């Protein structure tokens, strides 16, 4: 394995942190958003500049400081981290644009704080993506939890307070209560927390211990919203929509599943889990989450809550993929990070745009809205297709790979779960689209006069929708990155 | 039985110091008057002094001041066995000073407490605090 030593990963992480003073002390909103954009673009450029090396099978390493003997704060960019970092940093640019439209459109308070903590969150997300070891990952994971707290509770009212409590209790509480001890016990066994392709825990602990640790990690990374630690996610929907969009479709929740996948592949190693036959319980947990999440989503009327439950279900696809421990399954799980991100962020953008333009939050109030906001609702349709996993959208690709993985692993039950949940996805998304476009004119609540959300809202959602489409035809570099890292971690 | 008694008598001032420590501590915990507590505290400190000074003792020997020391009679004449040990005495001079100092500060605080609540009885002070 070729390695390169470079400070680029560190700079990529720090760029948005360094931008905070600039954002915070900007005098006018335009300058402030200018800095945000600049930071986002630089960040993306830095991440993208490392892509060719990674695609050539190299790893980029950056050791910052040795905080504990044998344990450093260190970054290592590999294919999987690159995949996630690319998605997150690219979508930050889009979301920044969308934020401007949304926040100004609603004339929200404390926008400076909002943009500052957004930048911190992105730093943390990229930090998690590039972490070379569990300690570094834990550090950025906690940073993300805390930095998103002011975003989730942006409205500073009673409801935000309750949700914020729930959010912190689930994410930080679980990470301190479960991940930290699990990490320490792992360290006690291995003396090393570096992610390595076949794990570091192999051969050091008994099956019972490994099983215990595995579940402490899986539930401890509560950001992944694996049931039963999922209920913070719907609660966190009180946040402004761009927050829900980026953080709760991309950065925060994906950090959760990313961490789980990382730990499964980098700490435990697929071989050991297979040897100990621990994939079945994991699959069971993930499948349960998928099905229950989808069923609950069916019953929601609030659009954002429905999306939240849909997210819960979709996240477990990724866990499911990793838990199959087969190359195709892992690839599918990883690619699903990207596919779901683009699809879901489109949906959230749409929900936000609807709210900005009409003030409506509930699906039942959206009858006929397609006539009023055709672009938005078309994008919604595309996003929904992607999430359901139907061509011509990117989501199809990841789901297809997952299905192949299930076949490869001889898990017919999982195949059934995948197919049935797609059905459920369709069942909760299609009524929205139908209601928006095909309702009888006399039931429509909106006049047939086109009145879209501000341009800053519409353009981003159009872009992500288009990308969702494009990804089916040209799923690179995500597909290649996923294939590379899946090959590495499964050793096939 | 006899050896027990002999043992007891041979160390009687150690028993005395233990008794003093217990008396002092009892006063500090059980008494409700702050000045009595301060007195108990002083008893404990004095007991420690008794303990230390007892270590220094050598039966039948004199205080550690060398007679005619400044007339150069030669140091070989001085036998350690002839004098009691000076070190514990030195230490206890320090301990005495410390206990005086502690007493002073404790009294000053007691005066402050009295100024504030008009009493030095803990029960009454508790009542005053309740009232506020």
């Amino acid at each position, binding site marked *: 394995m070729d390695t390169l030593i470079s400070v680029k990963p560190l700079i990529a992480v720090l760029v948005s942190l360094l931008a905070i003073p600039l954002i915070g002390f900007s005098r006018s909103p335009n300058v402030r958003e200018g800095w945000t954009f600049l930071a986002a673009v630089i960040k993306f450029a830095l991440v993208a500049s490392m892509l060719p090396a990674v695609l050539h099978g190299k790893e980029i390493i950056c050791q910052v400081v040795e*905080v504990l003997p044998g344990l*450093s704060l260190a970054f290592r960019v590999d294919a999987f981290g690159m995949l996630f970092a690319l998605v997150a940093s690219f979508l930050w640019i889009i979301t920044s644009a969308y934020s401007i439209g949304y926040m100004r459109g609603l004339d929200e308070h404390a926008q400076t704080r909002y943009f500052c903590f957004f930048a911190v969150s992105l730093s943390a997300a990229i930090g998690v993506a590039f972490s070379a070891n569990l300690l570094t990952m834990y550090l950025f994971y906690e940073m993300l939890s*805390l930095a998103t707290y002011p975003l989730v509770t942006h409205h500073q009212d009673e409801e935000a307070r309750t949700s914020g409590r729930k959010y912190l209790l689930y994410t930080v509480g679980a990470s301190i209560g479960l991940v930290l001890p699990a990490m320490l016990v792992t360290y*006690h066994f291995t003396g090393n927390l570096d992610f390595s392709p076949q794990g570091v825990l192999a051969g050091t602990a008994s099956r019972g211990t490994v099983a215990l640790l595995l579940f402490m990690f899986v539930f401890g990374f509560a950001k992944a919203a694996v049931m039963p630690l999922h209920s913070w996610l719907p609660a966190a929907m009180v946040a402004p929509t761009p927050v829900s969009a980026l953080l709760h479709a991309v950065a925060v929740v994906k950090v959760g599943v990313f961490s789980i996948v990382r730990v499964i592949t980098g700490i435990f190693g697929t071989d050991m889990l297979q040897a100990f036959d621990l994939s079945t319980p994991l699959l069971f947990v993930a499948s349960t989450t998928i099905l229950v999440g989808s069923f609950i989503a069916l019953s929601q009327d609030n659009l954002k809550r429905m999306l939240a439950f849909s997210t819960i279900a979709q996240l477990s696809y990724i866990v499911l993929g990793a838990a199959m421990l087969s190359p195709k399954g892992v690839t599918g799980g990883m690619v699903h990070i990207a596919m779901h991100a683009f699809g879901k962020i489109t949906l959230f953008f749409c929900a936000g745009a609807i709210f900005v333009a009409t003030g409506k939050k509930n699906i039942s109030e959206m009858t006929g809205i397609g006539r009023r906001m055709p672009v938005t609702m078309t994008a919604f349709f595309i996003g929904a297709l992607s999430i359901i996993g139907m061509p011509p959208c990117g989501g199809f690709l990841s789901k297809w790979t997952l299905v192949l993985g299930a076949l490869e692993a001889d898990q017919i039950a999982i195949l059934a779960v995948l197919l049935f949940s797609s059905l459920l996805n369709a069942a909760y998304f299609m009524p929205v689209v139908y209601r928006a476009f095909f309702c009888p004119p006399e039931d429509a609540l909106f006049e047939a006069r086109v009145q879209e959300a501000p341009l800053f809202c519409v353009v981003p959602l159009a872009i992500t929708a288009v990308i969702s489409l494009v990804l089916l035809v040209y799923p690179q570099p995500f597909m290649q990155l996923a294939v590379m890292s899946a090959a590495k971690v499964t050793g096939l | 039985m006899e050896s027990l008694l002999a043992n007891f008598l041979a160390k009687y001032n150690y028993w005395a110091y233990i008794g003093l420590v217990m008396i002092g501590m009892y006063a500090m915990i059980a008494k409700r008057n702050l000045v009595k507590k301060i007195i108990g505290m002083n008893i404990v400190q004095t007991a420690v002094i008794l303990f230390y000074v007892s270590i220094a003792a050598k039966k039948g020997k004199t205080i550690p001041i060398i007679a005619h020391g400044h007339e150069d009679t030669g140091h070989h004449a001085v036998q350690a066995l002839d004098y009691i040990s000076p070190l514990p005495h030195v*230490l206890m001079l320090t301990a005495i000073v410390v206990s005086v100092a502690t007493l002073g500060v404790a009294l000053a605080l007691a005066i402050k407490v009295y100024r504030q609540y008009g009493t030095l009885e803990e029960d009454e002070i508790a009542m005053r605090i309740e009232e506020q």
Partner: protein
Amino acid sequence: MSAHFPGLVIIIPLVAAFLILIGALLDRRLAFPLTALALLGSLLTAIGLLGKVIQTGVVEYHLAGWAPPVGIAYRVDHLNALVLVAVATVAFVNLMGTRELVKGLFEDRLGPFYTLYILLIAGLQGIVVTGDAFNLYVLLEIAALTGYALVGMSEGRAPLSSLNYIFIGTVGASLYLLGVGYLYLVTGTLNMADLAVRLPALYPSKVVVSAFVICLVGLCIKMGFFPMHAWLPNAYSHAPDPVSSLVAPLVTKVMIYVMIRMMLFVFTPAFAFDQMAISEPMVWLAIAAIVAGSFMALSTRRLKRMLTYIIVAEVGYMVGGFWLGNRLGISGAILHIVNDAIMTLCVFLSAAAIISKVGSDAIDDMQGLFKKMPVTMGVFVVAGLSIIGVPPTCGFFSKWYLISGAVAAGQYGFMAALLLSSLINLVLFFRIFEIAYFEPFHDHHGDHGHFVSAVQEAPFEMLVTLVVTAVLLFALGIYAGDIVSQIIDHAIPVGIT
């Protein structure tokens, strides 16, 4: 000159104490600059000493030129050099930060205040560097006496709390003195190194066993270790704010240092851990301390009181970590002495800033503070995160060692207690953050109906010191690995694995 560093560290503040009093008799305004100068000198000396110890190993200093055991000797190794720097830093930083507060509280008695302040520091630093068991007692009493006076000088219940503090503190110190007396009785020496040489032959003796227990009980009382902690919350929470922020970070930590010093370097680890076999009960007591401290902190809605209960729990961290008896646990305990000193300083200083501006220490009165005092609250958040144990603040790393030590020793109860306390700290601090962040701010405060004008930021110098301490929290976290490998590893006897 550097040969005299061990002496100078104490002598500078000591001599300065008298000069400050004399200077303040001439002009009150002289008191502060003199104190600052002396403490700065002491801090620099301490840092120089640490550097010297790292380079050349143990530094000995024979006071009055007499070699031990005849004379008193200072023996500075990695352990006390590290703690010394921590003490000097806290003393200096707190001095700089609380200038305005002190001026407001004690304007007519600045001279005595700063004299006592610096004597307290001289005493604590002396405790840390001394290599003589009796000298330690004298210094202990200096630190204690000045502490009593400083704690008692406030309105309300402070004098009563301070008086109780005297009672308990004197009993603790007397027990320590008795323990030293028992050791003297069987060895004839007071020098720690000499004691360590002469004691092993006497380990079967009941006198040594009781000396050990008496010393330990005395020290546990002085450090406020559960269940002997009752004096601590009262004394620290009723004390004037600038005093709390000095005494709370230092006194208990220095006492824990003394415990470590006595157990490892006077008694040997073999005696303390193996022969006495009290590790298990001590760790369980520490667990009780952590749990009790955390829950008591939950039960109060007063800021300073809550923080003092957290100290009770933190004492449990360090004592428990030490009695795990392995290298990881002891490293964690020592590291936590330093980290907790800075953490507690930071949190108490920001509390002092808040209380002085809000005029009350009820956490319900802290509404809207994020808007009104953003910098102070920012620092408070950092301190809170460190106490919770969020990386990369230093609190995380000492907790890491402590938990690693617990895992290595198989003490899963201690690990659970640490995690529980982290979670409770999370609740404690976010309860405050929520109030300060969500609730609307009213300019109308207190039950007395008096008006406090709109709250603004703390004085500039206070803000600077607050920010400095917050930065220190991060720096200590990032350099935790270096501190452990460069200093603490050398501080622990080789035999401990």
